[in-house]
């Protein structure tokens, strides 16, 4: 078997604040095979964006390793990290604020090439035109405009062009369609799918929307308060969730069918606990309808089920 493109081990991300420490990501491990799309799913504040940024080394994680093509990114600094960045690029949630409003599109998309010291200004411009064309923007019209002259969907296309201009191996998408309307969302998801084939991309896709994830992901990792609850092939996870939190997330998706009465979410009422002082044992137990006394005592480790997925629960919903 080929070595995975990305290998993340025991990644920890903690931020000191005032009197305490925010445990944003607490020991997350996963592999990403070449050509695969892994989705990270969870509510706001679960640490999914922090995980994505830690993989990007923006900033590097406070513990653990992130190996890309066999090189541990967390051990790289300065210019060596900068030259490695050609291999991994990112697109962000807000397509408008992630583009510099004072620059023209041609400059924005050419910037990664310039930073990497590739080509001459003229050859870079040519390359930018090619990429813009690939993402469905007319270079003749788009090149000399500024971001405010474009709609949200078009700005996201520009972001995608900027991320792909260096032909990275790994593309990290942090909620790329959350700020867009459903109709535009479909355009961008189709575009990402095309780009994946065309540029041979491996993707880490962050989203809170399980319906979107169902469409793009080969594998899904469900995250709660800095830890993985369940990781597995998307078909399995959607058909028979093993973790009560996965089931709760699935039950919350609105069904576009008026004959279906919305069911209550299978979740104990209440907010995500503070990552400053996460609950003992299983972090999900305060909202889990199935929690027992053991859940408060013992941290459930992520363990493999016979069907190939992994679940971190003392009482999984699937027989094992």
């Amino acid at each position: 078997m080929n070595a995975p493109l990305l290998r993340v081990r025991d990644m920890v991300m903690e931020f000191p604040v005032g009197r305490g420490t925010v445990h944003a990501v607490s020991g997350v491990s996963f592999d990403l095979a070449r050509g695969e799309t892994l989705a990270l799913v969870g509510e706001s504040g679960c640490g999914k964006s922090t995980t994505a940024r830690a993989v990007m080394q923006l900033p590097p994680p406070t513990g653990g390793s992130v190996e890309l093509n066999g090189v541990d990114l967390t051990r790289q600094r300065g210019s060596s990290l900068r030259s490695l960045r050609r291999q991994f690029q990112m697109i962000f949630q807000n397509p408008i604020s992630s583009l510099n409003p004072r620059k023209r599109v041609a400059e924005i998309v050419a910037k990664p090439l310039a930073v990497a010291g590739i080509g001459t200004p003229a050859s870079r411009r040519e390359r930018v035109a090619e990429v813009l064309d690939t993402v469905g923007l007319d270079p003749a019209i788009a090149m000399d405009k500024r971001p405010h002259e474009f709609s949200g969907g078009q700005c996201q296309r520009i972001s995608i062009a900027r991320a792909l201009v260096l032909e990275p191996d790994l593309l990290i998408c942090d909620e790329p369609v959350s700020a867009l309307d459903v109709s535009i969302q479909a355009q961008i998801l189709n575009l990402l799918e095309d780009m994946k084939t065309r540029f041979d991309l491996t993707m880490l896709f962050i989203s809170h929307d399980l319906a979107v994830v169902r469409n793009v992901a080969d594998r899904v990792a469900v995250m709660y308060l800095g830890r993985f609850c369940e990781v597995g092939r998307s078909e399995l996870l959607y058909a028979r969730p093993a973790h009560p939190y996965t089931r709760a997330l699935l039950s919350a998706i609105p069904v576009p069918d008026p004959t279906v009465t919305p069911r209550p979410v299978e979740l104990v009422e209440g907010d995500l606990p503070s990552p400053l002082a996460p609950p003992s044992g299983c972090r999900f137990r305060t909202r889990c309808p199935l929690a027992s006394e053991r859940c408060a005592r013992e941290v459930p480790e992520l363990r493999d089920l016979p069907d190939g997925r992994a679940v971190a629960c003392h009482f999984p919903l699937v027989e094992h």
Partner: protein
Amino acid sequence: MADGPLLRVEQLSTHFDTRAGLVRAVDGVSFHVDAGETLGLVGESGCGKSVLSRTIMGLLPSYARVPDQSRILFNGTDLLTLGRRQRRAISGPGLAMVFQDPMTSLNPVLRIGEQISESMRFHFGTPRAEGRRKAISLLGDVGIPQPEVRVDQYPHQMSGGMRQRVAIAIALACEPKLLIADEPTTALDVTVQAGILELLKDAQRRRGMAMILITHDLGVVAGRADRVAVMYAGRIVETAPVRELFARTRMRYTQALLDSIPRLDAPPHTRLNAIAGRPPSLIDPPAGCRFAPRCAAAQERCRVEVPDLSADSGCAAHSFACWFPRGLEAAA
């Protein structure tokens, strides 16, 4: 109380005079909301749904213009003919609104109890102590734990979902007859979304309140609205009882919106049916049907003649504005 629907909007337009030209954000919209019912108002960003709700609420900026033929009849009174004071007397006990972003719609420097009781004091002269007591009971109603503690807190001490619950408590304070909820869950997590929608439904049932639920997500209205109006480029293009709309979608734009939702039962990497292009300019909209440039079924007539919103021959409550409606091809 006058007969007829609680709210009747007739030929309502809202225009903005900008340097680029006259933006017809809402362009001749007519609909009604009966007492106690939920109307889902659906459309993409920029279709005019938020401007429409702000026009009804009287929250337009000074440079907006509402042409003379427009009518907003609330309990028989045309809100557009009222002066500022009269209008203010109607909102609160009459109309209230919940906005999309609970981070910016609350006052960050006022305790939430104050924000809830403010309108009761204004409209009914409720004394402070009683206002505080009512605020606590409202916070309990909207599902906030420890309301007697929360009432003295500030918005920044709460999560997004909790803040939206507070915003709903504020809107419910004066027992409005009509609640306009403008994308009340778009800024929230799915898990929180279901709770908020359930809360709105529950508040509505208990108070016999009517609601306009504005959203871009047809999945949200499917389970929560009695009737749906679909808006495109400043106009209502289809309206029907919710089951009728989903069972016999006539307007191709409505169908395109439905088709673009990723389906949970489709295998991964299924190509989505995106709507090509984007909504037209509201300064210089296309002649004929405004959806024609993006419509796969558009024909010559669609690009020339404007289709009016007219009733379906099979169902009087179902209206659509299309020359070649789905399922009625033979008739065309």
